[in-house]
């Protein structure tokens, strides 16, 4: 399959009457960085949770990675960085990574190697033995990213990964995402920051659980005859 994700007619309601997603259809190609752009409450997190299998949709079809795989085989290929840090506050940075590595079945040697690599990727050398609770917000965000990369996933879901990260590290993260893409890793990330969205290969614009548009940035700009994404988003909102 050329697409790593295919979603068709997805619906999800929350009580009492919130249409978190309605009739959502989209495709994500293999090996690209795909952005979910939308304001607060537009359904980005809900979509990601359905895609990683935590949440069941009310209706609609979801095909992910390879349909011949079992649920746990797929889960082993997926990395998920949640919107909140989702780390054990009382454990140290290294212990957190060690735990998630063990959950994904890494051997002792792989674990050691990966933990070292990732700590240097997120630039937290020397903090290995610090309890997560004692780290700054941005540092926790970095640990959270490292934890979702620990098992070298083929498909990576990042829910607002760069919130609270300083600009220079943010640039390095984006460079790293690019290098992951070149290794064939597909990335789906959510954001409501336009200039970050502009770095994605493709975008889906969401609002109130509905897809406003999907495509490459140039396509979206051409379609709406806008100079930048912000304009494009606003014009789509008016017409949608």
């Amino acid at each position, binding site marked *: 399959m050329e697409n790593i994700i295919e979603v068709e007619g997805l619906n999800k309601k929350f009580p009492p009457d919130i249409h978190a997603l309605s009739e959502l259809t989209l495709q994500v190609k293999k090996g690209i960085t795909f952005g979910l752009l939308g304001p607060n409450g537009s359904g980005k997190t809900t979509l990601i949770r359905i895609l990683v299998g935590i949440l069941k949709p009310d209706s609609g079809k979801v095909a992910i990675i390879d349909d011949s795989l079992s649920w746990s085989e797929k889960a*082993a290929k997926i990395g998920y960085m949640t919107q909140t840090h989702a780390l054990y506050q009382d454990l140290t940075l290294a212990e957190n990574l060690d735990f998630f590595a063990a959950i994904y079945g890494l051997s002792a040697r792989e674990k050691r190697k990966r933990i070292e690599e990732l700590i240097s990727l997120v630039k937290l050398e020397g903090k290995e033995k610090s309890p997560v609770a004692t780290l700054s917000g941005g540092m926790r965000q970095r640990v959270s990213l490292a934890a979702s990369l620990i098992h070298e996933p083929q498909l990576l879901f990042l829910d607002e990964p760069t919130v609270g990260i300083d600009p220079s590290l943010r640039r390095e993260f984006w460079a790293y995402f690019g290098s992951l893409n070149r290794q064939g890793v597909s990335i789906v990330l959510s954001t409501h920051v336009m200039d970050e969205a502009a770095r994605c290969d493709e975008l889906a614009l969401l609002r109130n659980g509905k897809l406003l548009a999907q495509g490459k940035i140039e396509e979206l700009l051409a379609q709406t005859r806008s100079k930048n994404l912000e304009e494009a988003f606003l014009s789509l909102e008016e017409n949608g």
Partner: protein
Amino acid sequence: MSIRRIFAVAKRIIRQFIHDRRTVALIVIVPLLVLSILGALLKTTPSYEVGFVNQDEGVTTPLSTQKISSAIEESLKDTENLKWHKINLEKAKSDLEDGTLDAYVLLGKSFSKDISERKSPLVIVKLEGSDPNASQQVLGLVNQNLLSSFSDQKLVDLKVDYLYGGEKFTSLDYFAPVFIAFFAFFFVIMLTSVSFLRERSQGTFERLFASPVNNAEIVGGYFLGFSIFALIQSLIVLLYTIYVLDVHFLGSLWFVFLIELILVVGAVNLGIFLSAFARNELQVVQFLPVIIVPQALISGFIFPIKSMPVILQWLSYAMPLTYANNALRDIMIKGKDLASVSFDIYILIAFAFLMILLAAFSIRKGI
């Protein structure tokens, strides 16, 4: 099912425990403290003052007048807990009223006559009575003391023997076995429900449920991690009760551990179930008294089940600790083997299964 992932979860639980020194201290120190206090309380029984009023007029035979009661009066012995005061009725009445006496014993006028005619003589025990607990104790002591004087005088033939335990057994021996189960049960429920709640609130479940780990592996890991601590706790409590508090222990340590493991399976899963109904740590801790206090009161922990009202007896049979207590007492005090407590073990296994089902249905709640 992957053993590796179960171990990973268990290892994490153990690490979290080790980082949390206060909790480690708590689960060891609290039981020891409670047991020591209980031991001190049970070892010192208060001393009671009891009047002895003898109005016996004796039996008159053509040859002499004989008072059987005199011999009894002679042979009354003061003990550690009971002091006799030989006085007349007026003094006994006023002393009982002003609190100098806790009770008095009155032998009626025809005491000797009745005995010689083989009728039962009148013996009145008047108790101060405001504290039912003290009354019970005084009555018991008086009975014991009188009975032994009666038997000294060959009026009755009294033989005391023990099927289990013996004269050296104290009340603490009776309580120690159930404490072990109670504390393990209590702490495991508390710790599991709080850790599970944290998993939910800090979002780590979100990550776990997106990983290949499944519910059974999570529960298995929790069980493994917590049972290690529950067993260490029990071992420390056992050693302390045996070597420091001089509790008598007849049974096998392995049997005790086995029963406890089954109980811990139930407790872990009950903790998981409870955590699904709480939104924060305070709420989950609020469940604990609801679960724990009734079990402490009516599982035969303190009060014997046989002496409870029927409704409470029924309730007690619905409580897992009742069976754990029963089995542990049989093993520790009576030195019985597993086969003779198999009924209790089956019930505990059934409880564990029920809790596993409840936990399985609630584990992903709110995710």
